[in-house]
């Protein structure tokens, strides 16, 4: 395992020398802290307190980002909305990538009939009408989700306001995870198929290593670059998918919000009050820029061949 340790050490070393990646890392950590720790500060207002006599106000010392069409503090809404979007971006993406990598790796490595069967299944899921599935899922999940919320509240005694925003996201994670893995599975399969023909795999086979060991220890690390790139590319789509699903009643319930929802509302009002679009978009875009540059940095750092540079 000595070799492995030095590989990670090398990778970290290379990452630390990539300025864009390091700046991105700091930006991400800053946004994460702001969204998850920030709301605990006393000066952050309630994101749902409506004041119809102070709607669409400009930014001020009191309301840093101004107020929305119902007089709510936009700064607070962006922070709380960030919690939802970041959670969705992390958890749902993780679920999708996890399923996709394992599925794709097995299909690509097994090949033959198993590969055919697995990939035709992916084809079917890919072509199934997404919206139909979502509507059906929303129908099925509606009661269990609220029962689960009640159960948690009864068991833990936490306030509903703290439990419900998290528990209502669970169906969202499931829905996005269940659909989002398809593309990643395809990519991983193609990469695994390409790598498994290389000499080092044949060497491992002739050494008599077990198939799972070859797949997960020797093949997957060699396709990690494309996986990272696709993962970071998939996050924006997944974060926006949340706003679509929430709109269909699966996920965030008003008056709670997310970046996607805030941006949609802001886009509708952009010519009246462009700040409503600007602030959530800045947070959303900087997160994604940072994430993608970090992704590229990771790819470069983990690239086994770049060690020779």
């Amino acid at each position: 395992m000595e070799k492995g340790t030095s590989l990670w050490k090398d990778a970290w070393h290379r990452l630390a020398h990539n300025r864009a990646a390091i700046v991105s890392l700091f930006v991400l950590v800053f946004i994460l802290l702001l969204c998850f720790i920030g709301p605990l500060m006393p000066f952050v207002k309630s994101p749902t307190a409506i004041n119809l006599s102070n709607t669409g106000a400009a930014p001020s010392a009191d309301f840093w980002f101004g107020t929305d069409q119902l007089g709510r503090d936009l700064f607070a809404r962006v922070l709380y909305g960030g919690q939802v979007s970041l959670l969705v971006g992390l958890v749902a993406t993780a679920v999708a990538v996890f399923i996709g990598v394992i599925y794709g790796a097995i299909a690509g490595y097994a090949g033959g009939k198993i590969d055919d069967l697995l990939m035709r299944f992916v084809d079917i899921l890919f072509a199934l009408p997404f919206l139909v599935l979502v509507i059906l899922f929303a129908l099925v999940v509606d009661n269990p989700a609220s029962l689960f919320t009640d159960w948690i509240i009864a068991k833990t005694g936490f306030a509903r306001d703290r439990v419900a925003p998290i528990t209502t996201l669970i169906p969202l994670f499931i829905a996005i995870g269940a659909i989002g893995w398809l593309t990643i599975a395809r990519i991983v399969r193609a990469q695994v198929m390409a790598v498994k023909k290389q000499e080092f795999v044949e060497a491992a086979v002739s050494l008599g290593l077990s198939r799972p060991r070859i797949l997960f220890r020797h093949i997957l690390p060699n396709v990690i670059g494309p996986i990272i790139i696709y993962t970071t590319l998939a996050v924006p789509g997944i974060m926006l998918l949340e706003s679509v699903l929430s709109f269909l009643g699966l996920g965030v319930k008003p008056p709670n919000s997310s970046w996607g929802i805030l941006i949609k509302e802001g886009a509708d009002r952009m010519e009246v009050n462009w700040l409503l679009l600007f602030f959530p978009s800045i947070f959303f875009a900087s997160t994604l820029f940072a994430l993608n540059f970090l992704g590229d940095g990771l790819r470069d750092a983990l690239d086994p061949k770049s060690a020779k540079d």
Partner: protein
Amino acid sequence: MIRIIINRIGQGIITLFVLVTLTFFLVRAMPGSPYTEEKAIPAHTLQRMKEYTGLDQPLPVQYFRYLKNLIVHQDLGDVIKKDGVKVSEIIAESFPVSFGLGVLSIGIALMVGIPAGVLAAVRKNTATDFICLSAAMIGICLPSFVIGPLLAVFAGLGLDSLNVAGWSSPGDWILPAITLGLINAAYLARLARGGMLDVLSQDYIRTARAKGAPPTRIVIRHALRGGLIPAVAFIGPAFAGMISGSFVIETIFQIPGMGQHFVNAATDREFFLIQGLVLFYGFLIVGANLLADLAQIALNPRLRKS
């Protein structure tokens, strides 16, 4: 070789059959029906409307009737809520629009994404790398429902020669194609960069470099072909995504394309239209995969034997 092809076509047919069957039952499991309306339809009228479309029959009867119409008469059925409109008409009218828009925006994506990605790879970890990627990534860091209206307001309202929306003159294609193209440009740039970096660190490139070949020549002559494979492989799925997933762009720019039907058919419970669209889309996907596999087999002698 022929056996492989027959095998693959057989797989495709089975896939489509499973797809059609699944869709048939899934759409009918949704809450509501094509006849669910804000003003409730009286029971005796509803009965008559269902008789006309056959939706009054038990599910198995409906299913076999659908299969029969599909296979024997090549009939995809009617659009239920639209008086006298066939599903096939909707597909035939909207697909060329989506196809044209798709080709144009893929073109834009290629012209923006590939150079940006290649340049970023060649000038890895420099300001050029950063700027190229940043520019290419705008398309995914801002949602299309922001970029579209922004383009419409600044370019469409600002320039006399561009309309903010519509689909009547070639000028109307520009803004939606840019919006759609930018999304894919981001993917292509990132994939091209990654792919190029993989190739540039290969031994034969090092050898060429050691021999003193000029860098531009190395990139164009040797690296591009291999380095662009991931990006090129992405074009197929991206194109399929544009056909079914361009709802937002179509509504922002008022385009009579196919994406809106994928959404509206589901929310309107247009059973036959959803089934028809899914079958059509599935056919495209299965067909594209089949072609890709066959091309691979034809190009790779080792696979041909097995």
